[in-house]
């Protein structure tokens, strides 16, 4: 049943929140498709050593630039490294960076947004102007600026991307907090003597969370895309470590003869980003309070 159809049916009996959540979440084909893609990539990342047919870094000049075939399903690159194996190992870098950046960025961003939204007045003004300032830079330029200051390496890429993602979380969280804090239960909590910290952590944060979960899911995709962009430019994680971004870039030289070298990793980036976006969309529908108790 589509969401709209469900909305229209009145007098339907109330069902448990969890069942309703799953029902709405899995009601759309693309969301299920997204979940399957994400699961496949997670499996690929965890079991890479067993799934990859070859060592991703093993140089074999006798088998350089092979076309896709039986021995090498996606062919080999200029150094004879197996493209399929490198793409599978690339999953690890992308997912790890995506996950760590989302955790770091959202913790810092949500804390800033929580403080700004809860205390209001000048605290709000100061924090949000700083956030506005960071938002004035295109995300990639901000990441580039910070990566250039910190230098290369996976840790610095994580730092740069986390920093670049903070403003988005802070802004959303701040808006959420400002709405939620107007509720009577917050006032009730205060009048019973709950501290600011308790109100913020126990009452505000959980009630502000649904849209942030949606955002975090979509940001996983955005982060993976940004990381791929940085390593495509040669500024992110350095070779010989296989990342999808630097594979696309390396393959560019052999575009005429071996287009698969760029196509395969790029397709992986697109699939995983698309999947996170669709799952985010599904979460948004499933967490929509308007539908609560209806389906």
């Amino acid at each position, binding site marked *: 049943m589509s969401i709209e159809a469900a909305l229209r049916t009145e007098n339907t009996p109330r069902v448990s929140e969890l069942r309703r959540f799953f029902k709405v979440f899995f009601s759309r084909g693309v969301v299920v498709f997204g979940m399957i893609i994400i699961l496949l990539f997670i499996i690929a990342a965890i079991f890479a050593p067993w799934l990859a047919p070859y060592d991703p870094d093993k140089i074999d000049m006798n088998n350089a630039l092979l076309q896709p075939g039986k021995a090498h399903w996606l062919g080999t690159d200029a150094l004879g490294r197996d493209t399929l194996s490198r793409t599978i190992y690339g999953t690890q870098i992308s997912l790890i960076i995506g996950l760590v950046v989302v955790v770091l960025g959202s913790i810092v961003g949500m804390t800033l947004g929580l403080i700004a939204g809860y205390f209001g007045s000048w605290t709000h003004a100061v924090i949000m102007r700083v956030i506005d300032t960071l938002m004035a830079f295109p995300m*990639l330029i901000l990441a580039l*600026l910070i*990566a250039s*200051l910190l230098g290369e390496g996976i840790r610095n890429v994580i730092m740069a991307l986390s920093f670049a993602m903070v403003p988005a979380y802070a802004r959303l969280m701040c808006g959420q907090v400002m709405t939620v804090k107007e509720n009577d239960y917050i006032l009730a909590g205060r009048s019973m003597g709950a501290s600011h910290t308790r109100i913020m952590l126990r009452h505000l944060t959980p009630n502000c969370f649904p849209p942030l979960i949606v955002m975090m899911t979509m940001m996983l995709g955005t982060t993976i895309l940004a990381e791929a962009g940085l390593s495509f*430019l040669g*500024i992110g994680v350095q070779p010989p470590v296989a990342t999808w971004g630097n594979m696309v870039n390396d393959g560019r030289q052999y*575009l005429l003869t071996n287009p698969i070298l760029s196509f395969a990793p*790029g397709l992986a980036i697109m699939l995983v980003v698309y999947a996170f976006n669709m799952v985010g969309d599904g979460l948004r529908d499933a967490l929509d309070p308007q539908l609560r108790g209806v389906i």
Partner: protein
Amino acid sequence: MTTYIIRRLILAAIVLFLVSVFVFLAMRLLPGDPVLMYMSASSVQEITDEQLAQVRHQFGLDKTLPMQYVDWITGVFRGDLGKSILNRSPVIDEILRRIPITAYLGILAFIVATIIGIPAGVLCAIRRGSWLDNFVTTLANIGITVPVFWLGIILIYVFALHFRWLPVMGYTSPFDDFWLSIKQIIMPVFCLAVGPIAGNARQARSSMLEVIRRDYIRTAWSKGLTERAVIMKHALKNGLMPVVTLSGMGVGTILGGAVLIEQVFNIPGMGRLAVTSVMNQDYPYVQAIALVMAISIVFSNLLVDISYGWLDPRVHYD
């Protein structure tokens, strides 16, 4: 209205000030001594402490941080963005050479995004659930997720290497060779526009759907107006308001995308300069580009805010 504009102007001024402070601090927080970097770049073999102090004084680096900021920002206002570490040429000259190229491509991409994205979204909303809607929505979802640098490479493979319809890469000024220039910018402009096209289409669709459900639209239908009149005269005005906000954000997407796309298509704009400068550790350029891009985004946001107030009389001007 005037108070609203003044308020927005003040906010923009504050953000611009903070942007300049951020860029300035980023420059000073460099790992390593800028003077040493400068000296070693000029291949001085042995540097005594006295020489170092002298150079430091010469660059004003012995002053307090706020004073250094004042020195730097007055320089910026006079058009002095410092000198390249690599070749000692004034940064401003190179930046001014490259701004028109990035701006040209960016503005074209913005126009393309608007004239394709918005009508596509509106059409989807009107024909909701049709195959056209499903098709365009799927394309839009792919459009916001595709890595633009990869899309560029695919386009090069298909249209330049395979069919040989378009040149592989490069940039020619439209004043030098108009047709070659047009051929060269088709692919980069499309790549830059893909994200904003998809974003506009999605936003236009969802906000139009929101509006179409309203009572006043039902009233318009029941008056017996034609579909054309209902959509064009009643629904569009309210439906496109959120799209205006979003298209302002598209400027950031386009400028960020320029970094990647100029690299893919070998276009000598600001984005490519940013990448080569990061590679060469030529920080003055990186900072100048970050500053220029942030300023253009602050101004485009200001423009959006003001046009919003002008388009929607309900916006509070206090």
